[in-house]
Every structure is written in structure tokens, then in C-alpha cells.
């Protein structure tokens, strides 16, 4: 980071390569659309660049980037609500076009869809606690909430996710069973 603040362009590329994929995954889960996630990723790093002289030695890069990305994601969500666009939904058609096993892609879409059904405050805590692996102390400082509030949101969010993922798993298993029995009959 010190090299980047001093003007080393290759240091910026290194920061992008290290944190870009993590942030992009987070933004995909947050906004549900690949194009929006790409756009937000770019804005996140542009804002990071503008704020580089605010960076004090001893600060951590990742919480900075995550906070910027979350702020931009919230703003996009608000704009969508004001413009009364389609509510946030996972958009499988816009998922990366790199070939992957179908099961892995289905699993990822299922988790993404379940996450998008959580209240934003719960979703953000789970994103930071589970997907980013941050301790509750850091989650609370990023979100500007007390540790206890963050823990309660995490617990409620995980409970709801367990129910949602259980429902969708049951749905897909019974759907597959129906397809198999239909195949057997024909």
C-alpha cells in the first residue's frame, strides 16, 4: 500500500488482483447482477484511489475496500427502490460465462438467491462473517453497529438462511424426484 500511495502503478495492479475477485464475489451476492457487480467493483477501486492519501500506516486494506463496496452497493439498492426496478434477485443469465460443473453453479445460485431474500442488515453481517471470514469486532466496526447487535443479526440471518436453503433443497430434490418418476413412466 505504501508503494501505491507513493505512486507505483504496479502496486495498484497487485492490490486489484489480490482483492478484486473477493470483492466481485461479494458484490455479485449483494446486487445479484453481474453487470452491476462489475460496475460497482470499478467504482470501488476508483473511490479507493481517490482516498489513498487518507490511508494511515497500520490500516488494513481489505476492510477499507469492503466498506466502500458496501456503501456503493447500498446506494445502488436505494436507487433501484426509488426507480421501482425489479427487486434484487439472482440473475443466473448474467453469471460468469466460464464453464463450471452444473452442480457447483446451481449451488452458488441457490445460496445467492437465499441471501437476497434476507434483510439487508442480516445479509451484510453474514457476508462479512462467513464469506469474508472477519471477526465480529471488525464486522461491527465496518457496519458501525455494536458487537452485540451484529451477533444478533448474524444469528437471525443464519437461522433464516438455514430455513431458506432447507426449503430450496427440498424443492429441488422433490422436483428431481418428480422428473425421474415421469421419465420412468414414459
Amino acid at each position, binding site marked *: 500500500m505504501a508503494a501505491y500511495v507513493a505512486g507505483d502503478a504496479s502496486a495498484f495492479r497487485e492490490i486489484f488482483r489480490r482483492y*478484486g475477485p473477493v470483492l466481485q464475489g461479494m458484490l455479485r451476492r449483494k446486487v445479484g447482477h453481474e453487470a452491476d457487480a*462489475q460496475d460497482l467493483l470499478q467504482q470501488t477501486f476508483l*473511490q479507493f484511489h481517490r*482516498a489513498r492519501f487518507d490511508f494511515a500506516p497500520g490500516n488494513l486494506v481489505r476492510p477499507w475496500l469492503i466498506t466502500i463496496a458496501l456503501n*456503493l452497493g447500498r446506494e445502488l439498492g436505494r436507487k433501484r427502490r426509488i426507480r421501482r426496478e425489479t427487486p434484487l434477485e439472482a440473475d443466473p443469465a448474467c*453469471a460468469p460465462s466460464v464453464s463450471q460443473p452444473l452442480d457447483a453453479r446451481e449451488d452458488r445460485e441457490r445460496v445467492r438467491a437465499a441471501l437476497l431474500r434476507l434483510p439487508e442488515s442480516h445479509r451484510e453481517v453474514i457476508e462479512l462473517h462467513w464469506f469474508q471470514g472477519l471477526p465480529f469486532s471488525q464486522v461491527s466496526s465496518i457496519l458501525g453497529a455494536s458487537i452485540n447487535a451484529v451477533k444478533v443479526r448474524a444469528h437471525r440471518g443464519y437461522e433464516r438462511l438455514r430455513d431458506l436453503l432447507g426449503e430450496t433443497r427440498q424443492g429441488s430434490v422433490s422436483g428431481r424426484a418428480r422428473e425421474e418418476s415421469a421419465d420412468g413412466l414414459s
Partner: protein
Amino acid sequence: MDCREIRDQLLLGKKPSGAEAEAHARACPSCLLLMANEGSLARSLAAPPDPEGPEAERTLQSLERSIEAERGVLGWLRSRPGWLRHVATAASAVPLALSFFLRSGLRPDHAYYPLGRMLAVLAAFAGFALWLIGTATRPLHRRQPSPRAVGLAVFLGIIVAVGIALLPPPEIPDPHALPGDPVPQAWRCHAVGLLLGAPVLLVALLLRRHATLNGALLFATAAGLVANFLLQLDCCAVDRSHLLSGHASLCITFILLVLGGAWVHSMLGPRDGSER
């Protein structure tokens, strides 16, 4: 053992076990849920990460072009530390105000106006304006105020200006009262206030790193309060109708200017509604 170690074990497909894991699970209901049923929730959440597509390189190239375009004076100003942008925004009112007061002098009754009251009024205007500018220039790597908080801050700014205008007038010798009908005189104050507060709004909009309507509304309210601060030093009217229509209403005028500008921008700008 902490949450991260529990998560790492679950991601490896192992069930965290041992006294330390149990002690942590007892204190952390979230990890207890993740570990329950042989870690079934954690397994569901542990879907493989998205593959890195060719978009990453394209995004980096596009980003480098955007950063290249940041090299002008504006780019330099925007990248200054937050405190410096805060001070520069607040200080932007000083040059015009100084030249104005050097030309026209302070209010004629300043020697009679109660000093304590004058200082309290000036401190209220300045303090609230600085707080609004600080809130609006808060960098994006810190949590941003919610729209509700912004609405409340703008409302409080207007209340400060209106509340001060409605205070009982101080007792000042008669010859210093404003001659003529105080309401038409208010137009003159309103125009002067717009001129004196405008630099704050313009500089704030130039120095902001991220264009949002919420931020612009906070700057507009701050500009209105700075204008009230300077009019307090310029105008000797103590009549409430004059102070309300000529001074306090400046906050609302600046807010309407910002809303009008945003509307024009949305009409002329990109149709996706994004503000860049």
C-alpha cells in the same frame, strides 16, 4: 478457538471438535448453528467461489483509464485528505466575505448588539455548518449516513436558521433599525446571502469524491447556514419577518437550487440514472 478457525475447519469439510470448539460454540450462537447437523448449513454456504472470468482484466484496464483521467487539478483536489477538503470547503467563503466586509463594513449596530448573543448566534451557525460539511465529506471507507439521517440533518439545519430568526429581538437603540419596510429589504439580504454562500456550495461540489444527492443537500444546507452567519455580521435588521424571509429562507433556496440542478442533470445525463 475463534469464529474464523471454526469457519476454516467447516470449509475443509471437518466438524470442529474438542473442548475449545465446544466452548466457542457455547458463547457464539452463530457458530453453533453453522456446526449443527454435521455442519449442514456451512456445507450449503461453502459453494465454490465464482470463477475468475476474462472480465477481470477488462475491468482493470478500464479502471486504469479512469485513474489516468484523474490527473487534472480536480483529481488532485479530490484525492486530498478528508480533513483538508473539509477545511478548504469551509474556508472557501472567506475571500469573498472579506472583500465584501472590507467594502461595506460590519453592521452599523455592532457596537450595541449584545456581544454574548452575537457570539452564540455565530457559533450556532458556524458549528452546525461545519458539522454538515464534515458529514457530507465523510469518506466512503467509513459508513455513510442513511437517507433518514441526512433528511434529519437537513431539517435540523433549517430549524437552527428559523429558530434563530424567531428569537426575541435584542434591545438596540432605534437609529440603527433598518429604514423602510423590512420585507422588501429582505430581497437585498437574500441576494447578498446567495452570493456569499455560493462559494461553499460550489467548492464542496468540486471537491467531493462521490456525487450523491444526499451529500449535495447537506452542502446546500451548510451553504445556507454560512450565508446566515455572514448576514448576521452584515444586516442590522432585527424584525422577525425580515430575518425569516431574507436570512433563514436561504437554506431552503440553496436546497431548491441543488434539487433543480439534480433534476436538470437527470434530464440531460445518462438514462440509467447513475451519478458519476
